[in-house]
């Protein structure tokens, strides 16, 4: 975890930089997608449920 968020880390190659930044980004994207789903449930929580049967 420390390696993931170490702000003083030096990247010697573009490969290293992109591996790090993309890894963090993909994890963040996963979190954001789950977060947005939960936010939608919160947002629409009190709406009238539309029943089609």
């Amino acid at each position, binding site marked *: 975890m420390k390696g993931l968020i170490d702000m003083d880390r030096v990247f010697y190659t573009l490969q290293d930089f992109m591996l790090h930044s993309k890894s*963090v980004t993909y994890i963040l994207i996963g979190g954001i997608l789950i977060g947005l789903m939960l936010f939608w449930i919160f947002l629409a929580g009190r709406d009238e449920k539309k029943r089609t049967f």
Partner: protein
Amino acid sequence: MSQEIDRINKSIFTPFNIIAGTVIIAGLIVTFLRFTKGLGAVTNLDDNNPWGIWIGFDLLCGVALAAGGYVTSAACYIFGLKRYHSAVRPAILTAFLGYALVVLALHYDVGRPWRLPYPIFLSQGTTSLLFEVGLCVFLYLSVLFIEYSPAVLEWLGLKKIRDLIVRLTLVLTIFGVILSTLHQSSLGALFMIAPSKLHPLWYSNYLPVYFFISSIFAGLSMVIFEGSLAHRYFHYKMDEIHLKESKDVALGFGKAASFIMMGYVGIKLIGISIDNNWHYLTTSWGVWYLFELIGFVALPAFIYAIAAREKNLRLVRWAALISVFGVVLNRLNISIVAFNWQLPTAERYFPSWSEITISLFVVTVGIVFYRFIVTRMPIFYEHPDYQHDN
């Protein structure tokens, strides 16, 4: 006779008219100075800062906040949400006036007003992003004028032309959405040419996406904000349908804005992550960035969410006001505050009083025209001769 003169004088010299009149007179004087003595006489612009608040506020904020037109008509005519129909005309009017004033404000920067049609008709700079912005704004202003014209035609009693233009609504809406997507994002893309000048927290490869997404919730928020002002000052002009639908419009738009704003916070964080710019958040610029993102995007998104759940109109309106300020702050941060962030303080830009006067003048002219139109034309009500046509 003197009593009649007193009555007329009382009706003209209202507080609004006095303030608006003063701003307009001051604006006309500065306009004369700008076009006779040049930019240097009225602005603090220089080689380092060629764009000031006329671009940062009048153009960027004006275009973003006028996005309510395409958002509302897309919601009503493309997504089929007919319960928002009463919000379309006010939104289109605001958008039309907004874009028209953007073009007016642009004249102050570019000068030589007779040359404005040149990039469209004479010398198209097709490799330039700014050409694309100009072309899209020109086309979209035309679309908005046509979309707005039924209100004028109903007022003038020109039924045949009005009926013909109303049939074009869907085509115009689609065209409007395409053009808006293009120019809203392109305004953000303009700053991609200056990665060394714009602070890394605001600079991103995704600037076009950020500008486009933020224009959506800017438009939604502006419709809510403008609707609340209209209810306060033009309530007497509104018909039963408008009054009945207004709460639904505000709550529905607030709910949509809430979700989009949360998504926007997410993509901004992704942008920081992709460039590994987390360390900037611990600087003073980072504090300012988080102030903008959390205070003026995440916070109003939460307020919108609570308001939508509780069906609280007052809370929606507060969230709309904060969101509108947030979009203005974002555009000003990108174009002025965080632009040339590395220059020493003595070389940074701050607008002159003349520049501020012109910006106020442009906004005041817009409000005056808006008031003229809504008090005379069928914007907040359906014209009695066309009540079953819309």
